[in-house]
C-alpha cells in the first residue's frame, strides 16, 4: 500500500474552492452572518489599535534584529523593554526611548544597550524635537532591515516551491512532539519521507505562560518542544534538506499563542516558517491568558503573518473537546467568522486563513457521520477561499486503537468528500500517548488508502435537498447567526466571560498577562506597525 509516488509533483495549485458548492446556502444569510461578525469584532479591533503590550514592544525589538539572552537566560528583548517601562513607561512605545538611548550612548547595537539596561547603567527618556526625529529615523532604518529579511524569506519560500513542487491538497499535516529538537528533526524528516506535507512542532506544556521566549536549541520540553528562534531555524533547515530530496516543499508550522504571541510570530517570519497556529481566542479559553492581552496581541501577530506570507491555523476544533460537538457546532462557525474578520482586518488574504474545525461528534450517536459531513460542508461553503484545517477525532479516541483506526478512516473520508485542504492526521493512539513512530506511519497508510480509494468521490457528493445533511447544515448556520446577534449586542468580551466558547468562562480582567497591556498615549511610535499598517492597506486594496 505504501506508494512513494503518491506525491507526484503537482502543477501550480488552482485558485478558488476545492469543490463546487453543494448546499446552496442563501447568500443573503451568509452575508448577514459576515456583517454580524464584523459588527461584533470591530470594538475589539478598536481596542487593539488603542493599546500595546509588552510582547508587541518586544516583537518590535526582535524584528529590528535583537536576539540573545543575558547570563540568567532572560532574553535581551525582555531586559530592554522592562528597563524602558520602568524608567519612562511604554505608553509611547519602546522604540523612541530605545533608539534615543542607542544614539546618545553610542552603542554598537541594541544588544549592547540591552545589557547595559539590564545592569541598570542605561538611562531612558522620551525624546522630543530633533532627538525624537533622529530616534525615529534610526528605528525605521532598523525595522526596514528586519522586514527586508522577512520579504526575502517570502521570496525564498516561493523559490523553494518552484524548485521543488507544491504538494496537492489536502496537505497532510503531522505533529512531532518529543520535547527535544534533536529527536524532532529525524522524526520530522521521517514523517516527510512517508508523505507529510506539513510538519507541526507542538510546543512544550507551559510555554504559553512564559512571558519571554526561551533562547537557543532546547531538549527538555514536556509533551512538546519549546518554540525558540534557534529551534525554528534548525527545523526549517532540516525540512529544506528533505524538501530538496523529495522534490516537494515540506511546510513547517509552530504555535503563536500564549503571552508571547507577537514575538513568536516575529521569529516565525524571520526564520521562514510557513504556517502558524494563531487563534484570536484559544489562549484565552485553553490557557487562561487574559482576554484583552490575547486580543491585542493577536492583531499585531497576524499583521506579521500577513507580511510573511504565513498561513494561519485557527483553533475552533478545541471548543469541541470541552463542549459537545453537536450542541456546540454553531460556536465553531461563529468563531470562524470572527477569526476571518480579525484576520482580514490584519491584512491576511483568504488563502492565508486556515480556519479550524473538527470531527468530534460522539461516534455512538446515530447518523454521526452524516452530521459530520453537514458541518464540514457548511464550513467549506462558508469559506470557499480559505484553506480549511480539519482536525481528527481526539475526544472520543479511547484505548481501543482498532476502533480508533476505523474512526480515523471515516474522518479521512469526510475530509476528502468535503474538500478540506489541511488534514491533520489522526492517530489511533490519541487517547494514550504522544505518537510513536509506528502510529504515525499507520496513520499515513490510512490517509493514503482513503485518498486513493475515494478522492475522486468529492465532486459526486450531493446532499439530498431537504435531507438530513442539508437540514443540519442550515440549522447550524441559523444558530450561528442567532448567537452572533447576541454577541454583537452584548459584546465579545462579555460573551467570552459567559463561557460561550468551549463552555469555559473567562472574565475580561481575569487570567494571566493583563499587567502587560498598556494604553497608547499621544505620540505613540511603533516603527513595525508603521510598516505593517502600510502593507495592510496594500494587501486590502489588492484583494
Amino acid at each position, binding site marked *: 500500500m505504501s506508494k512513494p509516488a503518491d506525491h507526484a509533483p503537482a502543477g501550480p495549485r488552482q485558485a478558488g474552492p476545492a469543490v463546487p458548492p453543494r448546499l446552496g446556502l442563501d447568500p443573503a444569510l451568509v452575508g448577514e452572518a459576515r456583517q454580524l461578525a464584523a459588527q461584533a469584532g470591530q470594538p475589539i479591533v478598536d481596542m487593539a489599535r488603542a493599546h500595546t503590550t509588552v510582547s508587541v514592544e518586544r516583537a518590535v525589538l526582535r524584528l529590528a534584529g535583537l536576539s540573545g539572552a543575558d547570563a540568567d537566560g532572560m532574553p535581551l528583548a525582555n531586559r530592554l523593554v522592562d528597563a524602558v517601562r520602568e524608567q519612562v513607561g511604554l505608553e509611547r512605545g519602546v522604540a523612541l526611548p530605545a533608539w534615543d538611548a542607542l544614539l546618545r550612548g553610542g552603542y554598537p547595537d541594541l544588544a549592547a544597550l540591552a545589557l547595559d539596561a539590564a545592569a541598570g547603567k542605561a538611562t531612558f527618556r522620551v525624546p522630543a524635537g530633533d532627538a525624537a526625529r533622529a530616534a525615529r529615523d534610526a528605528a525605521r532604518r532598523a525595522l526596514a532591515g528586519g522586514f527586508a529579511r522577512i520579504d526575502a524569506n517570502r521570496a525564498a519560500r516561493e523559490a523553494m516551491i518552484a524548485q521543488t513542487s507544491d504538494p496537492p491538497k489536502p496537505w497532510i499535516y503531522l505533529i512531532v512532539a518529543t520535547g527535544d529538537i534533536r529527536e524532532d528533526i529525524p522524526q520530522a524528516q521521517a514523517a516527510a519521507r512517508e508523505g507529510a506535507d506539513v510538519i507541526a512542532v507542538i510546543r512544550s506544556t507551559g510555554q504559553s505562560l512564559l512571558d519571554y521566549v526561551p533562547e537557543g536549541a532546547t531538549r527538555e520540553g*514536556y509533551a512538546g518542544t519549546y518554540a525558540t528562534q534557534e529551534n525554528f531555524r534548525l527545523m526549517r533547515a532540516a525540512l529544506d534538506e528533505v524538501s530538496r530530496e523529495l522534490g516537494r516543499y515540506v511546510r513547517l508550522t509552530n504555535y503563536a499563542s500564549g503571552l508571547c504571541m507577537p514575538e513568536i510570530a516575529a521569529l516565525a517570519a524571520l526564520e521562514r516558517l510557513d504556517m502558524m497556529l494563531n487563534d484570536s481566542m484559544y489562549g484565552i479559553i485553553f490557557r487562561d491568558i487574559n482576554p484583552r492581552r490575547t486580543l491585542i496581541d493577536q492583531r499585531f501577530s497576524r499583521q506579521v503573518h500577513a507580511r510573511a506570507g504565513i498561513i494561519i491555523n485557527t483553533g475552533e476544533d478545541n471548543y469541541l473537546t470541552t463542549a459537545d460537538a453537536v450542541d456546540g457546532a454553531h460556536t465553531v462557525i461563529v468563531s470562524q467568522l470572527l477569526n476571518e474578520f480579525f484576520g482580514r482586518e490584519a491584512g491576511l488574504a483568504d488563502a492565508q486563513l486556515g480556519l479550524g474545525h473538527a470531527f468530534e461528534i460522539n461516534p455512538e450517536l446515530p447518523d454521526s457521520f452524516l452530521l459530520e459531513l453537514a458541518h464540514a460542508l457548511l464550513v467549506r461553503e462558508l469559506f470557499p477561499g480559505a484553506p480549511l484545517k480539519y482536525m481528527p477525532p481526539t475526544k472520543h479516541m479511547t484505548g481501543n486503537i482498532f476502533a480508533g483506526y476505523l474512526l480515523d478512516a471515516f474522518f479521512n473520508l469526510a475530509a476528502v468528500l468535503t474538500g478540506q485542504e489541511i488534514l491533520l492526521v489522526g492517530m489511533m493512539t490519541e487517547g494514550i500517548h504522544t505518537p510513536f513512530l*509506528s502510529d504515525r506511519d499507520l496513520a499515513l497508510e490510512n490517509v493514503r488508502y482513503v485518498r486513493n480509494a475515494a478522492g475522486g468521490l468529492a465532486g459526486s457528493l450531493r446532499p439530498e435537498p431537504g435531507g438530513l445533511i442539508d437540514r443540519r447544515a442550515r440549522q447550524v448556520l441559523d444558530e450561528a447567526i442567532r448567537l452572533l446577534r447576541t454577541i454583537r449586542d452584548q459584546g465579545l468580551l462579555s460573551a467570552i466571560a459567559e463561557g460561550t466558547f468551549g463552555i469555559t468562562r473567562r472574565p475580561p480582567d481575569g487570567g494571566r498577562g493583563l499587567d502587560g497591556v498598556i494604553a497608547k498615549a499621544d505620540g505613540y511610535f511603533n516603527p513595525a506597525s508603521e510598516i505593517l499598517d502600510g502593507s495592510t492597506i496594500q494587501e486590502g486594496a489588492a484583494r
Partner: protein
Amino acid sequence: MSGQIIRPYGDTTGDGRVQLSFTLPVPSGTARQRALAEGAALQLAGKMGLDPAMVVHAKAIGPDFTFFIVYGRVAHLVDLSAVMVAGREFELLAPAEVNLRIRAALGRRLVVIGATVGTDAHTVGIDAILNVKGHAGEKGLEYYREIKVINLGSQVDVADLAARAAAERADAVLVSQVVTQRDAHLHNTRALVAAFGPPGPGRPLLVVGGPRFDPAMAAGLGVDKIFGKGTTPREVASYLVHALCPPGGGTAGARAGTGARA
C-alpha cells in the same frame, strides 16, 4: 479448582494465542536486511515467551526502522487466585448517605479544593469529578449538599494550591494530571507532596487522578489515593467519606484542624 488457571483465548480454549506489535531500529530495505529484521523480531517474541511466534506483517518505516505485527502462542499460565487487585477498600455510597455521613462526622461541610497543577491545562477530567454536570450519568461533587467545592482550574502552581488549601482549611485536595510524557505527572505529584509535607495530622487528604496513573503508586508517591481512568464522582465522594468521616462520628475532621468552624 477449574477456571482458576487460564491461558489467552484465540479461537480454542487454552490455545494461548496473542498478538503484539512493535518497531525495531533496524532497516529492511534489501532482502537480506528484511530477513535479518524478521529474525530480530522473532528473537524478541521468543524472549517474551511466544512460542511458536509468527511475523505476520513487517514494514519498513523509513530507512532505519521496521514495524512488525506478530502472532504467537504463549505457554504461560495465569493463576487467577494469585491475581492481586487493589480492591476498593471503601463502600460505594449514594449521595444522600455521603451527605449524612459528613454531617454526622464533621458537623459542617467537607471542603474540597480541586486543580490541575503544574503546566497541565487539561480540565475535563477534574471537572467531570467536581462539576454538577458530573460524569457517566453521575452528578459531580458540587451536587453534594455537604461538600463545598473550590475548583481552581488548570495550570495551578502547587505553592498557590497549598496556600489556598490552608486558607480554606480544606479537608481534601484533588489534583488532576493528564500529561504523562517524560513522567510529567510523577514530577508534579512529587512537587505537590513536597508543598504539602508528609502525610499526618494537619495535612489535607491528597488525592490525585488522571487516565494514565497507576492507582498502586499512591504510597510510593506520598499521596493518600490515586484514581485512574473512568473514575466516577460517586467513587470519589465515597472515598472521601471513608477516609475523613468514619462511621459513628469520630474526629477525623480535625485532620485539617478545622474543628473551630461551624
